[in-house]
């Protein structure tokens, strides 16, 4: 093995490279595959058609999340009124039973969004390779795990071979210096980063988030950050191991115990980029300059600080950018020059694999400040990321605070992040959403999504429009 300084990504890659083919592609060994109901049925079917077994049953973990309703959960399958959705959830259940895959099924208190459930259970561990048929698999990179979203054919390939065929990506360093101001969160940071890089800025790269501000983030903040790496075009995002990582994992159900823990911890502590490691691309951002962010357009790169205005396409020199900005403003029904704080919202969604963990719910609850959901807000949903997050929030009294203020308190799942279940935006409605994508129609046909942090979403719920939470004290 060469002794040249390595990046964290180089280290994980090398520890999983089964072999390199003559054509330059590598076989990469996969430690954990997470499964959900939308992208797995065709893969299981592919295996069944040719009678192939799973290569390693214990490397798979499943839970239904995309389609499950967030109300009437106690009814289990019977609560799913959409017959096509029901068929998917039932198919996942059948496949897991047929192949012996561990599943947190619809009525299990541990059920939830795959990217919330994996870390919560300690199933995501440093140095692992993790895949899932879902682009936000990048979330797990917060644990210094190489976690990537893959397509359904690749899901089947991993099921059958425990490997991915892949070319190594390049190394991208995002160095975040300084400290985030009060009221500014990991979500604002990642939106600002995407605003700067653009949605294709890190294509072909694995991002490592480094620097003082990253070290200060909690594991949950790091998950939020890594979650949206895909929105900058990167397949994966990483944060190096430190004490925060280690103490988060300790004692979780899937985490190693006793002597095995010591052995694991010793290895995990090596999962940092070497001092002189070289990155193909580097950018540096000063965290203290970042304001709470709000997306105004139909792509996550279309963001502005809460104290800014909607941009003017006519002032843009790049023709393609001007055109997409124009189209976005038309779709969003916003005017160039309009203050972000003048955008009214009628729906609120606090949830998704980006921001539905306990710290997110706590941050949102602090913005209620004894107020009520504004009269112009017709629905404010709070959807915890997992059954366990839900239970904890109920125990801490957060659920009651939300309910008292007029929010809807729901059961865990993807919900209005993509609106495959009944939680959807109506045509023309503006929504303050803690999710990760503001694409046209993402949350419902004709819906207008503004991506924000949980605190900003809750403050928007109370005020009926976006407000600068830094000014609320």
């Amino acid at each position, binding site marked *: 093995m060469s002794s040249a300084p390595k990046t964290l990504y180089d280290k994980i890659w090398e520890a999983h490279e089964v072999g390199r083919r003559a*054509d330059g592609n590598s076989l990469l060994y996969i430690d954990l595959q997470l499964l959900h109901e939308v992208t797995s049925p065709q893969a299981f079917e592919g295996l069944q058609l040719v009678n192939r077994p799973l290569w390693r049953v214990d490397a798979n973990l499943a839970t239904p999340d995309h389609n499950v309703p967030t109300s009437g959960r106690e009814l289990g399958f019977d609560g799913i009124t959409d017959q096509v959705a029901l068929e998917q959830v039932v198919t996942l259940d059948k496949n897991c039973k047929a192949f012996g895959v561990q599943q947190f099924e619809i009525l299990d208190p541990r059920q939830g969004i795959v990217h919330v459930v994996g870390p919560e259970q300690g199933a995501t*561990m440093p140095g*692992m390779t993790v895949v899932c048929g879902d682009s936000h698999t990048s979330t797990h990179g917060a644990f210094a795990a190489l976690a990537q979203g*893959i*397509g359904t054919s690749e899901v089947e390939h991993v099921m059958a071979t425990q490997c991915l065929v892949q070319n190594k990506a390049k190394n991208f360093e995002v160095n975040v210096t300084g400290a985030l101001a009060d009221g500014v969160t990991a979500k604002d940071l990642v939106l600002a980063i995407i605003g700067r890089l653009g*949605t294709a800025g890190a*294509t072909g790269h694995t991002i490592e988030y480094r620097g003082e501000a990253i070290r200060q983030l909690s594991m949950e903040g790091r998950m939020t950050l890594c979650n949206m790496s895909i929105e900058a075009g990167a397949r994966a995002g990483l944060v190096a191991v430190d004490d925060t990582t280690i103490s988060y994992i300790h004692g979780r159900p899937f985490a190693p115990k006793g002597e*095995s823990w010591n052995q694991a911890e010793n290895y995990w502590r090596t999962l940092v980029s070497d001092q002189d490691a070289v990155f193909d691309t580097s950018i540096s951002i000063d965290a203290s300059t970042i304001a709470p962010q709000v997306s105004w357009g139909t792509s996550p790169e279309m963001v502005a600080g809460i104290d800014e205005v909607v941009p003017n396409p006519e002032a843009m020199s790049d023709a393609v950018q001007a055109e997409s900005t124009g189209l976005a403003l038309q779709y969003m029904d916003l005017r160039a020059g309009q203050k972000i704080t003048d955008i009214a919202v009628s729906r609120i969604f606090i949830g998704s694999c980006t921001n539905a963990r306990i710290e997110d719910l706590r941050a949102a609850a602090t913005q209620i400040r004894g107020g009520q959901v504004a009269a112009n807000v017709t629905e404010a949903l709070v959807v915890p990321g997992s059954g366990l997050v839900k239970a904890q929030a109920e125990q801490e009294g957060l659920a009651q605070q939300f309910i008292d203020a007029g929010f809807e308190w729901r059961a865990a799942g993807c919900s209005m992040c993509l609106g495959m279940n009944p939680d959807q935006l109506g045509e023309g409605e503006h929504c303050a959403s803690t999710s990760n*994508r503001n*694409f046209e129609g993402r949350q419902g046909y004709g819906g207008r999504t503004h991506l924000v942090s949980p605190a900003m979403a809750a403050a928007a719920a109370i005020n009926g429009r976006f407000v600068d939470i830094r000014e609320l004290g």
Partner: protein
Amino acid sequence: MDAFVTLDGLVAPLDRANVDTDQIIPKQYLKSIKRTGFGDYLFDAWRFLDQGTMGMTPNERQINREFALNLPEYQGASILIARDNFGCGSSREHAVWALKEFGFRAVLAPSFADIFFGNCFKNGVLPITLPADVIDGLFAHVADGLNLSIDLQTQTVTDGEQVHSFTIDSALKEKMLKGMDDIDLTLAEANLIRDFEAQHRQRQPWLFRD
């Protein structure tokens, strides 16, 4: 998988950058447990003026007559030209299944998003990266009824007199030309994987739950 060797076909334009897979196939159609049945819903929110649901046929829908793919001159197109970062967003392979079922076997753009690009190769749809000025040139002529010949072996796209070369990863090219199955290819190396796995288990035993 279907092989891809050559393709002669009519070109249709999609003049937008950053087309995401939510646009290519909206989520309400992802509920199927099959790989087929998505073609009718390709670019659904742009091709139709009404909101569709799974199971509706195009005949029951309100057609957006202004959207390029609905114009008479582009009917039967098998090649799509697009702008930068085509296929970004969600990893849904349904996007490629929909494009293919609709009739597209090749997409030409200045750049593609990673996961979408890979998914194309699993389904015999060829994504071709061409310089932005070449794509601009194709957009300029598309309305005249542009036909292109694509030859994967020689890595060329020919429009009448002009020949544009493109680069492609040699392994992906080989697989497309022969329509090879990825899983079979990898299982041919099963012993290598087993050996690796045994060592990996020794180094990091906590990763194995059985």
